[in-house]
């Protein structure tokens, strides 16, 4: 299988604190990969480095053969990484549909003038966007809410909408930061199915952070455990979850 993401000795410090240090990972195409670790271990920071929110102080990130180290968010998104956020970041005043359509911004294009003068191109592309967006929303059973304001959705729905929006950018790699946070077990179960579905249906590679071990052990192929910014353990899910060091640092008993 081909490697999609290769991260080498990635690091960043805040002041004196080495939040991430020498982080390595290789993710195969179509893999469901988990990133776990105690609170404050640096998981979200890894995501921020991968998506260009922070610039790494050292190390390199290669996506599908492209060195994307040091690019900014916008460029990285165009290269094919999309993400969700630990604390939900939706376009709160826009409708659910429009949130997804913003995600489609770079894949379905027409010029500002087309928009102002409502040219046939505008109509055509808008229609395509509507169709695609609805299709995506349907995957997450959100199509019924398409005309709701995003901020009026219940919490769980908001998380799903974030994933839909990320998928709209047609990424190669999808990063999910604690997708199940704030969901009850039933909802989590549903979410797991959705994530699997996304992987299969969109042939997606997914890297996710999660504290819910049921989800992690349920769907992840492989795991990396971070501790104090460093890789503590890497390997297949079962192997990692039974590692005594991991149990001691993260899982408890």
């Amino acid at each position, binding site marked *: 299988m081909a490697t999609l993401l290769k991260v080498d000795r990635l690091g960043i410090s805040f002041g004196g604190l080495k939040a991430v240090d020498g982080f390595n990972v290789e993710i195969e195409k179509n893999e469901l990969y988990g990133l776990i670790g*105690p*609170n*404050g*271990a640096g998981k*979200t920071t890894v995501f921020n480095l991968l998506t260009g929110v922070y610039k790494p102080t050292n190390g390199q990130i290669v996506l599908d053969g492209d060195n994307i180290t040091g690019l900014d968010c916008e460029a990285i998104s165009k290269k094919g990484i999309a993400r969700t956020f630990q604390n939900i970041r939706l376009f709160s005043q826009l409708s659910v549909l429009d949130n997804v359509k913003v995600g489609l911004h770079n894949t379905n294009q027409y010029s500002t003038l087309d928009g102002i003068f409502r040219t046939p191109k505008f109509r055509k592309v808008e229609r395509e966007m509507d169709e695609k967006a609805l299709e995506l929303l349907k995957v997450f059973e959100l199509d019924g809410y398409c005309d709701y304001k995003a901020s009026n959705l219940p919490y769980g729905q908001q998380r799903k909408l974030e994933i839909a929006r990320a998928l709209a950018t047609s990424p190669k790699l999808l990063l999910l930061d604690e997708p199940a946070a704030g969901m*009850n077990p*039933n909802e989590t179960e549903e979410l797991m199915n959705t994530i699997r579905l996304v992987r299969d249906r969109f042939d997606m590679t997914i890297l996710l952070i999660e*504290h819910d*071990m*049921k989800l992690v052990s349920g769907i992840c192929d492989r795991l990396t455990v971070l501790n104090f910014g460093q890789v503590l353990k890497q390997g297949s899910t079962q192997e990692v979850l039974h590692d005594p060091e991991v149990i001691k640092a993260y899982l408890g008993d």
Partner: protein
Amino acid sequence: MSTMLDVKDLNVYYGVIHALKGISFHVDKGEIVTLIGANGAGKTTTLQTITGLIPARSGSVVYNGKEIIHTPGHQLVSNGLAHVPEGRRVFATLSVYQNLMLGAYTRKDKDGIEATLKTVYEHFPRLLERKNQMAGTLSGGEQQMLAMGRALMSNPQMVVLDEPSMGLSPIYVNEIFNIIEKIHESGVTVLLVEQNANKALSIADRAYVLETGKITIEGDAHELSNDPKVKAAYLSE
């Protein structure tokens, strides 16, 4: 056992949205009571109404024998009611230490505050490590610990907790529940809202199930955790 908190027929609106539709429940002194329910059921709204962050349209909330429905939220803290809010709400540009000291805002006993601070640091050593870091730059889980620690600083008789385990690593989820039990053992009454219903029911005395603004099931925590309806809707096997 005397009643600590008695909520009767509470109605709350967000504009035209009827969020709480006449709910009633009570928490006795020394109890752990948990409120479970799906997203958007109104759990947070309930807690926020009790501690005066949201005004109620009608109904009554009696705390320690006193009607508090119209008491301004800030006065409840000095009466021993603390609230760990949803979304942590730490003071982002203040240091961890300053956050904790604000938790003790209503207290005047210097020594007592010192002692409490020590226990909080014992519960959450990470906070001691980071005591001068700006709270806004803490990781999600660290912020959750801070929110909890801050509430404890007021030395409350009763705490209401809104999803305290959200975003915590498994080790800390266990730890948080241990801490809740410890707090409880030290005589504090607890009203707990949790998505992790398994855990919540395991430490609670009694529980209520909230569905779209109404209480639909109530009872002994243990019994509820065996109730097939609850099991199906809220628990994992």
